[in-house]
């Protein structure tokens, strides 16, 4: 009881109150330093996830999607060409399958979760297969299912080629089934692997950290006013330095966070408005090549509608990407350069011609089989136009993330050091005043 009374009496005196102020400033500086460093660290982690994990999965998803769409088109081209072109097309198909496998492997390394055997078997069972492309699957599950289906797909295509080379009609059935598997299941799974949305919080304002910083500044100002009343000295140098250091620390934190958030948001917008649509257009064009070849070899009900709808989708997506230059300022993204605009204009013209050819192939003036086959296998549609623009968009997306990470580099350590210095300055400023009362 006596000790408690002595302590209470000590803190009622000015000396005790100043000791309490020192303790409060030191704790506040430590907490503010920790909050600031954690805020920056958390944002840096989200950016690292965006650049490394999501970036790896997104890049792999784009490559797997392209490779599978190319493989689908090439699987039919093999049976439509002759001579040396057969071996070249077969090699192109196998290269695409290996590219798809490598992309899945690359993405799997960035995803730590492992889908259990029972779950993979359940997802690839006949009962579930029809719903795979519309179901909600984790990234790990999508990768596992795609990896399981890839050898099955390849087997169907290779069997189709062997029968078709012997002019056995069952070859067409194998190829058609393979194409359905890749178009109706695998391409959708690969497409949805991509997550273009930035991680939550990466582009937000650091409200909590800034509030803590302001609270520390208010505490320092309050202590200085108390000190001015008690000691009749208007300014305490140590406290002034501590306040200045706190303002610098949290000003730096705010500026770095805003720059990082702006860059991360720009990267996401660029990805959503240019990179993802262009990658999809490129793959869907090859997909249309495959669908056109399949419609020639094995026509089904709805072919004309299906092919026309595909060209419509390509045109809509191209128009949407083409219109972004006018919105670029509003979206705060780099506008398309002249080469990019020319490439998109060329793609629009090509799709328009393509639509005309499809219409003609289903009309009374339909060309001979060999002519349609030659037109389908002549080249990879939209490859020349879009590959350059896609590569540029990919580099710009990556650069925005690099800029965001660069803005944060060293900020967590800097904030922590500045707040430690602020605590030390406050201690240095208050200690002589406490000593005066002893």
């Amino acid at each position, binding site marked *: 009881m006596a000790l408690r009374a002595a302590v209470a009496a000590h803190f009622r005196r000015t000396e005790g109150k100043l000791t309490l102020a020192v303790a409060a400033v030191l704790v506040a500086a430590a907490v503010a330093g920790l909050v600031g460093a954690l805020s920056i660290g958390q944002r840096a982690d989200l950016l690292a996830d965006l650049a490394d994990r999501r970036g790896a999965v997104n890049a792999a998803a784009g490559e797997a999607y392209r490779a599978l769409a190319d493989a689908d088109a090439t699987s039919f081209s093999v*049976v*439509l*060409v*002759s001579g040396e072109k057969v071996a070249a097309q077969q090699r192109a198909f196998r290269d695409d399958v290996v590219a798809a496998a490598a992309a899945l492997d690359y993405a799997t390394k960035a995803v730590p979760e*492992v*889908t*259990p*055997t029972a779950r*993979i*078997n359940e997802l*690839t*069972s*006949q009962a579930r*297969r*029809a719903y795979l492309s519309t179901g909600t699957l984790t990234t790990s599950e999508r990768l*596992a299912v795609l990896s*399981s*289906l890839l*050898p*099955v797909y390849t*087997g*169907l295509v290779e069997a189709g080629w062997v*029968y*078709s080379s012997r*002019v*056995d*009609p*069952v*070859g*067409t*059935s*194998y190829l*058609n*089934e393979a194409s*359905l*598997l890749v178009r109706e299941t695998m391409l959708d799974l690969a497409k949805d692997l991509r997550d273009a949305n930035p991680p939550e919080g990466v582009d937000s304002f650091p409200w909590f950290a800034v509030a803590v910083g302001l609270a520390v500044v208010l505490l320092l100002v309050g202590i200085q006013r108390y000190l001015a009343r008690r000691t009749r000295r208007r300014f305490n140098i140590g406290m002034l330095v501590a306040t200045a250091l706190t303002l610098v620390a949290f000003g730096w934190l705010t500026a770095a966070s805003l720059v990082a958030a702006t860059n991360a948001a720009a990267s996401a917008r660029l990805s959503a408005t240019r990179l993802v649509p262009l990658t999809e257009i490129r793959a869907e064009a090859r997909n249309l090549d495959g669908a056109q070849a399949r419609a020639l*070899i*094995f*026509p*089904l*009900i*709805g*072919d*004309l*509608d299906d092919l026309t709808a595909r060209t419509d989708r390509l045109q809509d997506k191209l128009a949407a990407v083409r219109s972004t230059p006018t919105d670029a300022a509003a979206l705060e993204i780099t506008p398309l350069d002249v080469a990019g605009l020319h490439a998109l204009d060329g793609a629009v013209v090509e799709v328009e011609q393509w639509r005309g050819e499809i219409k003609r192939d*289903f009309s*009374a*003036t*339909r060309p*001979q*089989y*060999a002519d349609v*086959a030659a037109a389908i296998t002549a080249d990879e549609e939209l490859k020349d136009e879009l590959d350059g623009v896609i590569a540029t968009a990919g580099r710009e997306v990556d650069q925005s993330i690099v800029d965001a990470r660069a803005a944060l580099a060293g900020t967590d350590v800097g904030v922590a050091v500045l707040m430690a210095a602020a605590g030390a300055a406050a201690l240095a400023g208050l200690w002589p005043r406490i000593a005066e009362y002893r």
Partner: protein
Amino acid sequence: MRTTTRLAAAFLVLAATTACTPASRGAVPRPSAPQPQPPAVTSVAARPRSTGCQGTTDSLRPDGTELVRLPRGGVIDRIRGRQLRVGVSQTAAKLSSRDLRTGAVAGLEADLALEIAKAIFPDRDPARLPGQIQYVAMPTRDRFLALETDQNGRFPPAGNVAKVDLIIADASVTCERVDTFGLRFSVPYLETRQALLTYRAVAGQWDPRQGITGKSVCSGAGTVNLARVTEHGGVAVPVVDTTDCLVQLQRHQVDAVSTDDVILEGFHDQDPNTEIYPFPVEIKDTAAVAVSNRDPELTRLVNAVLERMRGKPMQDLYRKWFGDRPMVMPPAYYEGG
């Protein structure tokens, strides 16, 4: 009290140890290979069937079989202005199969198409006649939708199918098809029997001649064969194109395939490990050329060609594609007797 304290301490130590132990890595997955699936049979096969037969399977008598005059009238004038568009199965070896590299179609039905083309273009160079025929592949399920008829015009999905002048695709003559699709059959050019195809090794465990009860049997959607499988106790497995059945059989996803014996012979040639068995009950069908009922002049011309071939030319054609297999051209029935 001391016991409680010790227990609490032990719990804390355990919890701390568990929290600090890294989670063990999941086992390496060893999934099974997914089973491939044939294209799904969707709505078209579910088209409502007409009840009671209003039309007739009797054909139209040709004006003559000489075919010396230049044919005229209606659709024939239009065909002469472009090409003859023929719907074929394309996946039925010996009847019509396409070399995918050249687009050339070969088989008994392709030869029939050539004979019909000769009659439509008698004034053209015979060597260039194959170029006057445009073959359009018809998956089994959708083939009759390719004719421009009033009935098909009222069925929106038919608008999506490439249109042809005639269909030569082992089409069994049924009154229901006449009603449902608004078509007219020519005189039949082939007599077929429904049969079963399965693997040789199955004979020890299951004799297909004894019945198909409980067995999964694959047939093309929309064919007469499919309903008969169900009628005889089998589990009918429909597919879009009959050749998908061979793929299913090769993967042992069905016990047998059931369709016309002439088609099964083509399947057997593609996979010699298979064997053809008769259907538990003998069912004969006749196959004819299908033409839109809007084009009677084309039906008469086709019949003229077929009647002219009756006898030795047709027997030569049978021998060309089916060797020594005994085959007879079925008799013709014409409207008005």
